[in-house]
C-alpha cells in the first residue's frame, strides 16, 4: 500500500517537473521571440546571410502542404476505416489489418521519410519538392486517420445504425447519412490535432521537400515549412539574428498549431451542441 502511494507521489512529482519544464521552455521562447517581434516576419522572404529576413513562404508552405496532405489522407483513411468498421465482418484478416494500421501509426516519422525518399525520389525520380513533401506527409498521416476514424465510428451507437437500416437505408446510405454525421464532432476534433502534428513535422520533410531559403515558390521546387525552417535556421543559419528569428518562428508555429487545435475543438463542440440540443446549448425556435 505504501509502495503504491510512493509510486503515486513519484508520478505526481514527475508530472509537475514535466509541466514546469514545458512552461519554462515556452516562457523562454516567448521572451526571446516576442522581445524582437516584427510583423514583417509574416510576409518577408527569408534572407540567407543578412538579418531582417521573414518566413512568408514558410507560412504559405506550412498551410498548403499540411492542408493538402490532410486533403489526401482524410478521405482515403476515412474510406479505409469505413470499409474495416462498417462493411466487412470481423475476421482474422480484419483484425490483422487493424493491428497493421495501429503498428504503422507508431513508426517514427523519420523512417517514413526515409522510405518516402527511397521510393518517391530514389525509384520514381520525383524532385525534392513541395509536392513530394506533401505526398510524404499524407502517407505519414494515413494510418493515424484510419485509427482515429475507426475510433470515431466506434463511438456511434449500434442503435443509430439499426434505426437507419430499419427505415430502408442501404449500408452505404447508413454510413453517409447516419454514421458520418454522428461521428463528425469527433472527426473534426481529431483533424485539428492531426493538422497540428503534421505542421510540426520536420524530419520527414527534410528528406522529401528539402530546404529553401530563396525567393521562389513552386510545386516542383524545394520548399520548407516553418518547422523545417526553424531547424535549419538554428542549426546552419548564417544570419546574425538567427537566435531571435528561431524563437519568433517557434512562437509562430506554436500559435498556428494551437489555433488549429482550438478552432477544431470549437467547431467540434458546436456540432455536438447542435446534435445534442438545448440541454447544453441554446436551441433555436425558428423553423
Amino acid at each position, binding site marked *: 500500500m505504501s509502495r503504491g502511494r510512493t509510486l503515486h507521489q513519484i508520478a505526481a512529482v514527475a508530472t509537475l517537473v514535466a509541466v514546469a519544464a514545458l512552461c519554462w521552455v515556452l516562457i523562454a521562447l516567448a521572451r526571446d521571440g516576442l522581445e524582437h517581434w516584427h510583423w514583417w516576419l509574416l510576409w518577408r522572404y527569408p534572407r540567407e546571410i543578412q538579418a531582417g529576413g521573414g518566413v512568408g513562404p514558410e507560412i504559405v508552405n506550412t498551410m498548403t502542404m499540411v492542408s493538402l496532405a490532410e486533403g489526401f489522407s482524410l478521405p482515403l483513411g476515412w474510406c479505409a476505416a469505413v470499409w474495416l468498421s462498417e462493411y466487412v465482418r470481423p475476421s482474422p484478416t480484419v483484425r490483422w489489418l487493424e493491428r497493421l494500421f495501429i503498428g504503422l501509426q507508431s513508426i517514427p516519422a523519420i523512417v517514413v521519410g526515409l522510405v518516402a525518399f527511397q521510393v518517391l525520389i530514389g525509384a520514381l525520380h520525383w524532385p525534392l519538392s513541395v509536392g513530394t513533401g506533401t505526398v510524404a506527409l499524407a502517407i505519414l498521416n494515413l494510418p493515424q486517420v484510419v485509427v482515429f476514424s475507426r475510433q470515431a465510428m466506434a463511438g456511434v451507437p449500434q442503435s443509430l445504425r439499426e434505426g437507419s437500416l430499419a*427505415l430502408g437505408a442501404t449500408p452505404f*446510405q447508413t454510413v453517409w*447519412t447516419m454514421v458520418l454525421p454522428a461521428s463528425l464532432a469527433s472527426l473534426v476534433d481529431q483533424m485539428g490535432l492531426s493538422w497540428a502534428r503534421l505542421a510540426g513535422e520536420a524530419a520527414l520533410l527534410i528528406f522529401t521537400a528539402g530546404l529553401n531559403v530563396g525567393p521562389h515558390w513552386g510545386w516542383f521546387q524545394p520548399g520548407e515549412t516553418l518547422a523545417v525552417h526553424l531547424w535549419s535556421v538554428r542549426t546552419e543559419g548564417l544570419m546574425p539574428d538567427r537566435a531571435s528569428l528561431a524563437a519568433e518562428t517557434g512562437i509562430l508555429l506554436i500559435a498556428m498549431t494551437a489555433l488549429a487545435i482550438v478552432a477544431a475543438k470549437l467547431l467540434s463542440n458546436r456540432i455536438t451542441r447542435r446534435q445534442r440540443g438545448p440541454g447544453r446549448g441554446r436551441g433555436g425556435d425558428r423553423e
Partner: protein
Amino acid sequence: MSTTTKLRLEGVSVWYGAQMALRDISLQVPQGVVLALIGPSGCGKSTLLRVVNRLVERSPGAKVQGRVWLDNEDILRRDMDVAQLRRRVGMIFQRPTPFPFSIFDNVAYGPRLHGVKDPVGLRRVVEDSLKQAALWDEVRGKLRRPASGLSGGQQQRLALARALAVDPEVILLDEPTSALDPGAAARIEELVVKLKGRYTVVIVTHNLQQAARVSDLTGFIQAGALIELGETSLIFTAPRDQRTEAYLTGQLE
C-alpha cells in the same frame, strides 16, 4: 377483420452460433390486425421481429431457416432487396433512439433516403407523420430543435412518426413502452390502437394488460417456441395450453 394474410412465417428457426433462439415457428397475421407477442424475457420475441425485417442478419453467427412471406413474397430469399423490405416493414425499438438531428430531420430521414427532395412535399410528410403519431401539437414551431431534447415518451412517438413517414405496410414494435412512465406508455398504446386496420402490427410486450388492451391476436412464446396463438380474448380467458395458463397466472398475480 379482413381475411387476407399479410405476414406468414413457416417453420422459422434461428440460431445464434450453436444456441437456438427460435424453434420452428409458424404463424399468420391477417392484414390490418394487431398481433401481440408475450413471453418471458430471452424467449426470442425480439429475434422474431428481427427476422421479419431481416435485421437479425446483423448479429454475427446468426442463422435463419424457414420461410417468411410478406403478401406473397418470400422475403428470406437471397436476392430479396433488403432495403426495400425494411421500407415496407417499419420497426420501433425498445429504447427510444432519436437520431442526432433536428426533429424535422428525424422524420424526414426516411423520405429523404427514398429520394423525396422537394421541400414542400417533405414538410407535408413530416407534418402528417407527426400528426399521426400525436406529436404535432407538442413540437410544432420547434421542428428545428434537436430531437434529443424531447422526453422519452415524445422520442418514442417521434420514432413512430419516423417509421410512418416512409409509409410502411407492417409495423413491428419491440417493447415500445418498457422504458416509459405509465402516462407516456398509455399514449403509445392509444396510437397502436389507432394504427389498427390501416397497418398490420406486431407488438412485443412484457405488459400483459397492454397486450390485452391493444391486440386482436396474442401469441405466447417460451424458450424459442410458439406455444399458443389465438384471439386475444380467448388467450387471456381460456388458454388451451397449460404453459400459457401458468405464465399468465404467474404474471398477473
